[in-house]
């Protein structure tokens, strides 16, 4: 393996090289702390080891009798206090700068889902663009197989299907929230980490000074696939960004399914299979049998129930370990995947769920 630009390096010893001012200052602060602490450490322990060397019984040293001195004790209380103040001052400066999210050029909402990130562009040109960003399924497979062999890619576990794309040298404000449990959105090269808390919005910002790909991972334990929801940010020039925006808008328009369209079962099943592979398979397994706390779909009473609304509700709203999908999947996708599961493996219900039926159950 080689270093991954914008991501971790092989045997990297220090912080990831900075792509933003804030990250550069954090990096400086870290060096400053490292050096200060090292100096104190050496000073303190040279005294100790000197004493260990010289004041041993085996070299015949006789114990002294002193055991108190208010003067030195006051001195060595005050000196550390001053050192600490000296450390706090630069830290305050960097912290205050890093918290100022005002006057952003572009605001993007990042929503944590178990286990992927949803991005919505909230203002400016790309307003309305929104997509979901998932780890490449191939990487998840490699992980299951033990990640052996020479052809494990450099960006193993970090590459996603739809990276977040932002323009260079622009102040990007990221609003985080989550749909199920707490996640954390962080990119080391930007010096940014912000928890995504369900029900609340929080924000952070960065202004990348370099173009390229930058990587981060979910930093807050969010359940089983916590290690598999990376963050991948593509920083591009303003021109490229404008082009990308235009493309996205076209894709958005094309993707917008009409929920009142009536589908045939084979079409829905074909689409459902794709949805299943991308979203459900990680837990429910390709054979639909589930594992551990994950219930099987194959032969499941709910899947095979003649009352279709039962399964629709579980998929929409979640239940126990099952996340809610109403925010991430469209009515058509949900209808497709339910139709798929109802007619796959040993399930042969022959039932078909239309998007309109899903729409009708939303909010119920």
């Amino acid at each position, binding site marked *: 393996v080689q270093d991954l630009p914008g991501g971790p390096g092989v045997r990297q010893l220090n912080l990831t090289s900075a792509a933003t001012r804030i990250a550069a200052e954090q990096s400086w602060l870290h060096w400053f702390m490292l050096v200060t602490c090292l100096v104190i450490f050496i000073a303190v322990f040279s005294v100790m080891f000197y004493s260990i060397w010289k004041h041993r019984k085996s070299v015949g040293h006789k114990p002294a009798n002193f055991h108190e001195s208010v003067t030195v004790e006051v001195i060595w209380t005050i000196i550390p206090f001053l050192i600490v103040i000296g450390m706090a001052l630069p830290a305050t400066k960097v912290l205050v700068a890093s918290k100022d999210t005002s006057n952003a050029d572009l605001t993007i*909402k990042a929503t944590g889902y178990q286990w992927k990130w949803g991005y919505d562009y909230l203002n400016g040109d790309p307003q309305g663009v929104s997509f979901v960003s998932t780890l490449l399924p191939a990487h998840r497979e490699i992980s299951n197989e033990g990640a052996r062999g020479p052809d494990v890619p450099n960006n193993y576990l970090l590459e996603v299907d739809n990276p977040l794309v932002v323009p260079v040298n622009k102040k990007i404000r990221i*609003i985080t*929230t989550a749909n199920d449990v707490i996640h954390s959105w962080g990119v080391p090269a930007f010096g940014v980490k912000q928890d995504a808390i369900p*029900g*609340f*919005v929080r924000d952070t910002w960065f202004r990348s000074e370099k173009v390229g790909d930058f990587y981060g991972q979910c930093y807050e334990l969010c359940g089983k696939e916590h290690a598999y929801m990376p963050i991948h940010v593509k920083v591009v020039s303003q021109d490229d960004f404008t082009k990308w925006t235009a493309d996205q808008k076209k894709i958005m328009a094309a993707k917008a399914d009409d929920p009142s369209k009536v589908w045939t079962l084979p079409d829905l099943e074909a689409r459902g299979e794709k949805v299943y592979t991308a979203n459900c398979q990680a837990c429910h397994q390709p054979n639909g049998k589930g594992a551990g706390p994950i219930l099987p779909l194959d032969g499941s009473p709910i899947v095979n129930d003649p009352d279709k609304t039962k399964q629709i509700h579980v998929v929409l709203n979640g239940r126990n370990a099952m996340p809610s999908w109403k925010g991430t999947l469209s009515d058509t996708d949900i209808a497709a995947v339910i139709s798929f599961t109802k007619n796959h493996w040993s399930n042969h219900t022959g039932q078909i769920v239309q998007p309109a039926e899903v729409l009708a159950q939303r909010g119920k």
Partner: protein
Amino acid sequence: MSSSAQGTPNYYVPQPSRHPAFAAFGLLAIIFGAANWINGVTWGRALVLFGFLWLFWVLFQWFRDSIRESEGGLYGRKIDISFRWSMSWFIFSEVMFFGAFFTALWWMRSHSVPALGSVDNAVLWPGFKAVWPSIAPGATASPANIIEPFQTMTPFWLPTINTALLLSSGVTLTIAHHALRANHRGMTVLWMWATVLLGFSFVCVQGYEYFHAYHELNLKLSSGAYGSTFFMLTGFHGFHVIVGMLMLFFITIRLMRGHFTPERHFGFEGAAWYWHFVDVVWLFLYTLVYWL
């Protein structure tokens, strides 16, 4: 606890005893049963019941032994002081426990509910108007509208009656204490019964209050931030009232059996401290939960 200071040992180290290990066994049954019960396992409830019976049986013997030791004159002055320290710090730990729930009330009321209704969070909860207790005019019951409308518990009349009951029980208890110190045992017992009775009426009124809340106000444990804090705070308080009442009850029985002396009666005082603590917590509840 009692008996004369003459000839009592400085320390008292009890003989080996099976009570602690047995009591721990009872607790194992309780928690194992409870963990299963709340997850719908059928035998869970039976195991909890068994655990409690077992535990009470053990505690009965344990306290019986302690009381015998006390009446047997084994507890000297130093041990009396030990009891005082331990009871004080136990009550302190209880204060911290209630502190956690009062903090939750404060946080939800002054922080999370307003934050959920603020402009920042309008992206997520567009329709939510935050007005504590989420049911006032103009408010929507909860951010996600998962909560049925309810009415809040007003300070009049039930909680006010309860305040009166608890406060007067504090007074009767103090009268009983003075009587004990003056060696008027009959009076002591009488006022003790009055105290226990007042405590008992408190519990009854609170039981009725809950009934009223569930059936007439539609105010439930699941009524969002308000319901959660209301029931957890008043519920834990009520539980402490019951415990305190039991303490007073057994102290009264002991008084009737001639235990304690005018000078030495820490068993009595410990229970009284506890009762006053429960009283003070109630005053906080009364102002913070019912009034404000």
